[in-house]
């Protein structure tokens, strides 16, 4: 194994290469630019191809094309580019094309602030395209090292589920420098828990089975087997059809191949001080969770019964974590409250759900501690005064 003091962009690049990614297409955007730059340097060394597209919409379509030809592919962007993925994301979901998408969140809406972290695409990673009738898988690491692991995992899942997978990070993870360990052999990859899955291809004649089965090889162009896929509702063979029965079968597959195999990824979370029925459960993902974890440690040292739940698998949302009657506090990098809505939906009826937002800046440990104490004393949360009292 080799250690580096490097950025999350570096870690993600190395993770992708370890997972077998040999095609990357992107468009420069802060804070994912260095990821594209690292790919442009590293992929040719590994016999892979880096391309720069005319926009993000094209970038993901090029990745689709390369994947359609049998190459493991990845693209990376930030919020303003992620929204331009809507079109190809839908295609990749519908055509069941494996692909990994990295989104490094910055402050929005629109261009917002380029060099500050945000978490404004929580729901967008659930609904990255229009039309509904699908499930998505999103993984949200909170460090450079974990980002590497989750990119490897995303490639693994994308091949087995035959679908695009989003890795949701933020500016602090991609741009921040951290201690990173890179495995140098397959044995070391195994030691680090990195799993890979080879690309197989569907030799035809059928495009898909209307089952929830995993490990169905994707269609590949160029084999001459007569493989077909399209943006239309497909028949089993891949022909386009305008029939609701055919649509129902296709939708069943897109939804239930994910819902029925949640055991493949629902172990991806971290719990801290959750074994003694904490009165307050602090829920977060990504970079804020690092501050939350420290704050919860300090709260425990003060004798406060606070626990921390950090989600790595964001979608499908892991409802099972919210069955206990407790106070939940969602800490997020946005002012509008996104994760909190899902917590409120998933939590038992007699649970209390609260929200603490910030954007561009992480919450501070004193702020968090103050709010933990107030919630435990049934006092209203500290507000700056200009935001709404309740989210």
């Amino acid at each position, binding site marked *: 194994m080799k250690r580096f003091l490097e950025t999350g962009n570096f870690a993600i690049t190395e993770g992708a290469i370890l997972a077998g990614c040999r095609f990357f297409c992107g468009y420069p955007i802060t804070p994912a630019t260095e990821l594209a730059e690292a790919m442009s340097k590293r992929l040719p060394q590994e016999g892979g191809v880096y391309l720069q597209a005319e926009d993000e919409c*094209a970038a993901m379509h090029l990745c689709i*094309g*390369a994947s359609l030809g049998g*190459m493991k592919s990845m693209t990376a962007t930030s919020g303003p580019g992620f929204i331009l993925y809507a*079109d190809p994301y839908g295609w990749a979901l519908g055509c069941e094309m494996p692909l990994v998408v990295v989104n490094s969140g910055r402050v929005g809406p629109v261009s917002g602030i380029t060099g500050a972290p945000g978490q404004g695409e929580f729901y967008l990673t659930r609904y990255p395209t229009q039309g509904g009738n699908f499930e998505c898988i999103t993984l949200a690491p909170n460090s450079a090292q974990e980002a590497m692991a989750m990119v490897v995992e995303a490639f693994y899942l994308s091949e087995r589920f035959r679908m695009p997978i989003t890795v949701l990070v933020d500016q602090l993870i991609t741009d921040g420098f951290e201690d990173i360990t890179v495995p140098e052999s397959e044995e070391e990859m195994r030691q680090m828990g990195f799993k890979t899955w080879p690309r197989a291809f569907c030799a035809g004649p059928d495009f898909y089975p209307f089952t929830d089965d995993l490990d169905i090889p994707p269609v590949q162009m160029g084999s*001459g087997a007569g493989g077909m896929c399209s*943006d239309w509702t497909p028949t089993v063979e891949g022909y386009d059809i305008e029939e609701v029965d055919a649509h129902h079968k296709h939708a069943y597959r897109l939804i239930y191949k994910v819902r029925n195999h949640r055991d493949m990824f629902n172990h991806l979370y971290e719990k801290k001080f959750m074994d003694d029925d904490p009165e307050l459960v602090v829920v977060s993902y990504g970079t804020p969770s690092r501050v939350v974890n420290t704050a919860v440690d300090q709260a425990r040292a003060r004798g406060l019964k606070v626990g921390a739940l950090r989600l790595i698998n964001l979608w499908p949302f892991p409802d099972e974590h919210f069955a206990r009657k407790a106070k939940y506090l969602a800490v997020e990098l946005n002012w509008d409250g996104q994760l909190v809505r899902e917590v409120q939906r998933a939590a038992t009826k007699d649970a209390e759900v609260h929200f603490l937002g910030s954007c561009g800046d992480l919450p501070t440990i004193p702020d968090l501690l103050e709010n933990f104490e107030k919630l435990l004393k049934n006092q209203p949360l500290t507000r700056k005064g200009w935001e709404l009292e309740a989210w």
Partner: protein
Amino acid sequence: MQYSSSALIQKYLRSRKIPSTACSGCGLGINHKVVVQAVDELGLGPADIIWGTSIGCAGRQTFGTWQGDGFAGTHGRVYAIARGLRIALPPEKKIICTVGDGDAFGIGLLHLIHCARSNVDMTIIVNDNLGYQSTGGQFGFTTPQGVKTDSSPYGMFEHNLMSEGMDVMHILKGAGATFLARHVAMDGPRAVESVKKAILNRGFSLVHMPYPCPTNFASRELGSRNQVNIYRWIKQRAKPLGQEDANTVWATGVWYDATDSRPEFSEHIWASVGKIRRTGAL
């Protein structure tokens, strides 16, 4: 035509999709046959070609017709998908995309230009039915000036890619395309010859093929769905290059042939990657 349609269909197309569900009198089938005949005359088989399609009449009616591998892109993006696919395909495999005018010259123009810029080995057949006909008949970006459509009830007066002496071919040539031709559906063997050259070019080729739409275009502009009227209307406005007159909208023939004059995209990329891998530099 040299071959009967049924022989070509049996050899290259899928009986499930041919005949297509195109409207009565639609000219798309003629263009489709021109392309398949060109493939046949080149001695290529279904496995030699990956067939891409787009959204709209041209894309929907040709998707799934090819016996070999085929895919349909989202609206305007088939060029970007094909560009990525080109990287993954062996160089001897050919990509042909049958697309519409709205797809290529409207929503997809940016991606099309970048395929021309990088000289991707692909043949784009733009089946131009003079507007957006699958949505009922609105004008497009190569619709002749003055014609009445559902979205130009007073006559089409917006400047477009074929007005005021402009020609969409200039844009594509300037962007780096290495083979460009234009033929109306009535050009028959001349069109087949151009499509053959387009396929043989190891680079970006585009053939612009206006064809008649009796159902929507003709019913609005000519007040009739009589197929003869719209076929005649198009034929009167098409002349071979160099023989144009005041009424000519479409100058037909090989518009630009710079076959093999520039390195092809994927070959160039792979050669560069290979060199970097071997030597660490270009």
